[in-house]
């Protein structure tokens, strides 16, 4: 499957990009995060992140579909 990933804040800095298209065998956000964390050297344990698919929060075992937009959200600091 092919996913579109968006990166924000320190994850974007670490990945050296704000987005990427990625062909992956991962079928859940949990599997996909393990893959991109290894590829880009992300320091965050999954427990510290939230994940959104196509603009809505989902669980880590959400079933991903081809062309989904997937975003791993680092701890926020607005306000």
């Amino acid at each position, binding site marked *: 499957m092919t996913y579109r990933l968006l990166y924000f804040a*320190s994850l974007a800095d670490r990945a050296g990009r704000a987005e990427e298209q990625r062909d992956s065998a991962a079928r859940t956000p949990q599997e996909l995060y393990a893959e991109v964390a290894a590829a880009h050297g992300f320091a965050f344990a999954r427990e510290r992140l939230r994940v959104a698919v196509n603009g809505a929060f989902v669980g880590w075992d959400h079933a991903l579909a081809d062309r989904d937009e997937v975003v791993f959200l680092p701890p*926020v600091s*607005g306000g």
Partner: protein
Amino acid sequence: MKRFRLSETAIDVARERGALDHAAAGGYVSFEGWVRDHNDGRAVRRLDYQAYAPLAASEGEAILAEALARFAVREARCIHRVGALAIGDLAVWVGVSADHRDAAFAACRWIIDEVKRRVPIWKNEHYADGESGWLHPDNTPVGELAPGG
């Protein structure tokens, strides 16, 4: 009408406040978050806010809808800046009107706490020493969590 929005330009509080007017409302409470000149002992020069805009908008809207359901308030609004801000700039505004001040204070406080906790917005502080860094919710630099390598 949206109750929450992101803004790339300065927030005009005097204009926004009009949305809270209600003949039955006896109390209005507002919170403004301003860019401070220091954080965690370091001098701050300016900062950037980055947002995952579609989710920030829907999550912010959900928070305001929850506030109207949880508290006896007439109206509530919130605007959060994105982009580059300087010291003293208004970063976030929350306004709440209610018949009684108890509810207005409680709802305003709840909204800003939830926005800071839930809305996907990130602050990058630029320090006087030329360094910069994304912040955690507790305002400590994210960089400290980077791997040893």
